[in-house]
């Protein structure tokens, strides 16, 4: 019989399953764990397998939970996209970050303020020269 410490570890992992799953499989799962540990499988590995199984079971339990998970993921994605767009549209952080590729993609704020009347500075990727370079290099 495996040590009580090993079994405590496995039982902690089994407690992560939903109650309905435990009432159906709990006893057998504990027995399988004890047999596997007796055969030489590390208790950590058995517990980890049950832990991952519990996470998967909780993710796919019932269509309502799946819809909730999908809505949550969409909201999270929309939120992070919104934050990213807000950061990109704000000129101050982009200038502060001194990101080189932003210079080639966008005119300097000074050029925008001047209404584009000032000749573009090729050092900052402005003017036709930059476009020509972009035409020649696929990476642009």
């Amino acid at each position, binding site marked *: 019989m495996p040590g009580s410490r090993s079994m405590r570890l496995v039982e902690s992992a089994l407690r992560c399953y939903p109650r309905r799953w435990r009432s159906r*499989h709990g006893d*057998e*799962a504990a*027995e*399988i764990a004890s047999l596997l540990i007796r055969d030489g499988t590390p208790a950590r590995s*058995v517990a980890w397998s049950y*832990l991952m199984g519990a996470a998967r079971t909780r993710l796919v339990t019932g269509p309502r939970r799946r819809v909730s998970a999908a809505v949550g993921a969409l909201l999270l994605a929309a939120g992070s996209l919104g934050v990213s767009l807000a950061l990109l549209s704000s000129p101050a952080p982009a200038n502060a970050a001194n990101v080189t590729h932003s210079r080639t993609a966008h005119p300097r704020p000074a050029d925008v303020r001047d209404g584009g009347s000032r000749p573009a500075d090729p050092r900052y990727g402005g003017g036709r020269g930059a476009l020509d370079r972009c035409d020649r290099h696929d990476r642009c």
Partner: protein
Amino acid sequence: MANPKRDGMGGPDVLRRAGDASVLILTSLADGAKHGYALIQDIKGFAGLQLGPGTLYGALDRLERMGLIEALPAEDRRQPYRITAAGVGALRAHLDSIERVSSVGRLRLGLEGI
């Protein structure tokens, strides 16, 4: 690539996205009902890999939901499972599909007839 439905080579391969554990479990159950620990031991014997118990239960639940296996009355603490007629059909279709891919692969590697 051959289309099984169009070419009349058996039913659709519902196990394609079910994962390796599901295929191993159905293969193990093909010669009779087994409970969890017996499944792990049998699969270790013929496939040389030990399914984690969490993976096993995940696959058993999925296969049961798909109607490919069914639970038999529990014996003590152990819950035996057996393959259903739908499970037999699904396993056959999947093995046919693997067979086709295998024969093309062997042909292209020049291993056919060796």
